[in-house]
Structure formats: structure tokens, C-alpha cells
């Protein structure tokens, strides 16, 4: 789950990837991830190409490899599930170092691990090189409904505040010796969650009246639109579109 700090995922830098307009990056990532997701699993060469494209982008963005690896931890539970499949999968068995594994299961495990890793790597590059406000602007430029981006904007803006409120509540609880080990001791956590809800809601009401007093009429003022040059579209989408083309080709041929 997204444990951590709202800004911890941004890697400050001035790489060509950082400089791209957010909507271009978003579009490129989405095209790339769709290509990865639809590629038939037996086309190992295609996944090799995707990996090269992904690694090139990581290098171009100058995002530390260790950072990418640490963020890949989010998919570990699914990797574990994938590792488990060849043992429980049904179908034809093949002998691997004395252990009988399901052939179908091995393919399935490869499929899940390859796609999940590539998809997550692409998302990590996007997140590491795009600031939150830019990401929302990019979504708006790609015609995501303004209501959604506005709500997400509020959420992200106040997230840190609410999480640090949570931190203070936790610290207060620990300083009073609260160290629960069993579910029956969970009541203070639940009342804490309730209190946090009331505080968030009341804060929302205060924000709303503050907005009204500043002339809010029910429509969020449009953010400054970030412009993207045709050249940057071509540059950023070139590789993902090639990947998508190959994925479709592989899909048709297989």
C-alpha cells in the first residue's frame, strides 16, 4: 500500500525526461504499458525489446537504479504469487532439477512477472520525473474530467497534512504506552480513525468556506495549461508506438 511521503517519489533532476510536458509523458507511458499488457507471453523477444526501452528511459531520466528497485517492492506480493503458480498449476508437468513443475504454470509466472515489472518500471519513471501538480495538469490536458483532477488535487495537497496529523496521533498514543498486539486492543486505533475523519471533514468545510470567501462559484479555475511541442510528442511517443506496433503484430501473428 502507498506508505510513504507524498514527495518522496519525485527525483529532482534536469534530464530530458524531466523536461518533457506531462501530458506527453503520460500518453507515452500509457501506450507503452498497453503494449506490454497485450503482448502474448510466448514472444520473449518482444519483452526483451520492452526491457531495453524501459532501461534506456531510466538511464535517460537519470533515476537511480536503486530507487527504481526499492519502488518495485510494491509488486512483490504478486511476484510471490507468480512464483507459486508452477507448483500448483495444472496441466503437463516438466522436470526441473528433480521437481515437477507445470509447463503452463511456468509460462504464466513468466507472463505475470515480466508484465508487472515492466509496467511498474514505466510508472516509476513517470512518477520520478513529474511533479504532482504537473501530473494533474497533464491529465487535464488529456481530457480527464476536471472534477476528477480537482478532487485528486485537493487530496494530494492535503494528504501530507492529514498524514502528519495521523503521525502526531500515533506519537501521542505511543507516548502513553499504547503498543497493541491483539485485535481486541484495537479500539483506540478505531477512535483515532473516527477522530481523523471528523477532523478531515471539518477541514474540508473550512476550506470550502475559505474558497467561497475568495469568490469560488462552483467551478475550479482552470490551471495554466502546459503546452507541448509537436517535436516532443514525436520524440516521446516514438518508442512506445513502435512497441505497440510490435505488440499488435505479435498478437496478429500468434
Amino acid at each position: 500500500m502507498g506508505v510513504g511521503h507524498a514527495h518522496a517519489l519525485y527525483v529532482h533532476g534536469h534530464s530530458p525526461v524531466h523536461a518533457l510536458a506531462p501530458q506527453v509523458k503520460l500518453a507515452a507511458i500509457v501506450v507503452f504499458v498497453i503494449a506490454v499488457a497485450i503482448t502474448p507471453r510466448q514472444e520473449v523477444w518482444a519483452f526483451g525489446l520492452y526491457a531495453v526501452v524501459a532501461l534506456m528511459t531510466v538511464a535517460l531520466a537519470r533515476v537511480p537504479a536503486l530507487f527504481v528497485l526499492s519502488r518495485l517492492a510494491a509488486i512483490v506480493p504478486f511476484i510471490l504469487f507468480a512464483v507459486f503458480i508452477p507448483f500448483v498449476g495444472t496441466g503437463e508437468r516438466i522436470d526441473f532439477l528433480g521437481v515437477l513443475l507445470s509447463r503452463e504454470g511456468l509460462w504464466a509466472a513468466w507472463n505475470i512477472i515480466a508484465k508487472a515489472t515492466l509496467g511498474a518500471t514505466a510508472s516509476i519513471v513517470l512518477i520520478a520525473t513529474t511533479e504532482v501538480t504537473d501530473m494533474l495538469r497533464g491529465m487535464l490536458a488529456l481530457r480527464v474530467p476536471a472534477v476528477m483532477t480537482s478532487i485528486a488535487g485537493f487530496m494530494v495537497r492535503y494528504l501530507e497534512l492529514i498524514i502528519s496529523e495521523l503521525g502526531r496521533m500515533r506519537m501521542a498514543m505511543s507516548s502513553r504506552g499504547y503498543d497493541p498486539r491483539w485485535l481486541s486492543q484495537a479500539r483506540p486505533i478505531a477512535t483515532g480513525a473516527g477522530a481523523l475523519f471528523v477532523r478531515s471533514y471539518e477541514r474540508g468545510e473550512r476550506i470550502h468556506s475559505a474558497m467561497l470567501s475568495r469568490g469560488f462559484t462552483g467551478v475550479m479555475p482552470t490551471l495554466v495549461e502546459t503546452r507541448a511541442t509537436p517535436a516532443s510528442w514525436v520524440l516521446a511517443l516514438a518508442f512506445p508506438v513502435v512497441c505497440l506496433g510490435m505488440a499488435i503484430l505479435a498478437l496478429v501473428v500468434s
Partner: protein
Amino acid sequence: MHAPDGFLNAGTAVVTVALSAGTLGVAMRQVKQTVTDRMIPLAGMGAAFVFAAQMFNFPVAAGTTGHLLGGALAAILLGPHLGAIVVTIVVVVQAFLFADGGITAIGYNVLNMAVIPAYGGYAAFSLLRRVLPHNKGGMIGATGLAAWLSVLLSAAAFSIEWLFGATAPVPFSQVFAAMVGVHVLIGVGEAVISSLAVTAVLGSRPDLVHAALDSELGSAGEARVAIRTFVIGGLIATLFITAIVSQFASSDPDGLESVAGSEGFLDSGQEHTLAHSLFADYATTGVANVSMSLAIAGIAGTVTTLLVAWGIVLAVKGKPPHTGGP
């Protein structure tokens, strides 16, 4: 349950995107009519709250912890429409800003973690409110059971999507047994935290609990009844589900997919060569077994769909009469 890219096949991804987007479109229209211009800051803060609440690690046993999912809690506190929107935003932000959950998996992640818990949980809650005593205790009991059920619905929904969009030769029955079995336990934590959190909000700002708006809540002294109702009801339901699940787990991996394949459930356009091999392998397994799996898949699917649909209908119906249909 933040599934990564490529975990289910492309068809499932597209269908779940359509289902989620359609439901959210209805939710958005309904919310705009009632909450008007307060919606954006309130939903934003609600989303921030759900995100933060998911960081509340609660103890399970012997020092291990679980965390809140919050779909049912959000629906009960904020109303099902706003609840579904808020949790959707959380899931989308987690995918795009935290690399948690795949971008192409957004359809089924939103469906399983936002739409189904919010509407299914709300429907279960409304149903239980009719059965349980009309007091604060009954409300808290209903919250707990609805929260528990919402987690199970979510797990069942995932298994059913697996039935249609599996990328691995693990039969539906095993996935269903594992998912629902584990979530029977996870749901208990969800239930305890959700019901106690609603108690706390009812104590300080009862006007903020959307689900309590329709009823005037009397004395607070009757919470004991609720806890007893909750424990007994939960126990019976747990036994029931465990009985079904264990039945399932003990029957050997069955040929559901072979049946699904031969009856055309599996997308014939996909590269499901496994359908053939499985068919060969399982042509001789008991027919009763297969039909039972299909029956359970059918029942689970029907219950989930009915509850979610009913939640949507209830939520839409509960609005002023001038409201147009979805």
C-alpha cells in the same frame, strides 16, 4: 489487492474499465445534484482521509498487523456515491503517483477496491439496518457486518474476474477458496475498525454520518446489544462461508476452465492453449465437482452483482424526486 499490469487478460481489463467508468458516471451525476459546489473540497479531504486511514495498521494477533481498506467505511460515512468516487480517486492516485497497482489494471482495481466495496457494502448495510434494532447499537452492528462483507465481496469479485481473465492455469476454485478464505479473516479487522470508527464519529458529530441522516438515533446505552448481535451474526456468517470454502478447498483442482472453455466462456481469441490441455487432463474428473464450482461461481457472482446493483439503486432512489434515472 493492487493488481499489477497484465495480471488479468486484456478483455477483462477493458470490460472492467467500462463497468467502473459507467458506475462512476452515475455516481458523479448524483453527487453533483446534492453536494453541489462543496463536493470538490469534501471529496478531496475524504480521499485524503481514506488514503491516511489505509496507513492505520491495526494489530491482528501476536503483533502482526493488517490495514484498513475503507470502501464500506467511506460509503457509510460519506454516502455510497461520494464514497465510491473518493476510493476511486485513492486507487487512481496510487497507480499514477505511487506506482501501486498497474495502469492497465486500473479497471479491475477500481471495480474491486472502490465500486464493489462502496455499493455492495452500502447495500449490505441498508439490508442489515432493516433487520437489526433501530438504535445506535444496531447501526454499529450493521456497519461491522457490512464492512466485513464488503471485503469478502471484493475478494469474490477478484476470483470471478479470474474465472474470465485468468493468465495462469490455477483453477477458479483454488483462487476463490484462497482469496475468500484469507479475506474472511482480514475482513474481521476491517469490521472491528470500521464499526468502532463509526461509533466514534456518531459520538462527536452524528450529523457527519451519511447513513444516519435518515434516522434519529436515541440513547447510546444500547451498544451492548449491537456488539452481541455483531459477534453472533459474524460467527454464523463466518461458519457458513468457511463451510463453503472448505468444501471447495478439499475438492481437488477441478476442470472448471475446461467446461468454461468448451462452453465458450473463455475468450476464444486469446492464446488460451491451456483450455485444450486442461480439457484433456480433466475430461475424466467428476461432473458433480465441475457443476458445483460453476454453481458457486454463479452464486458468488449473482450475490455480488445483485448487492452492488441494489446499492446503486438504493443510493439513486434516496435522492429528491426530481432526479432523473441513471
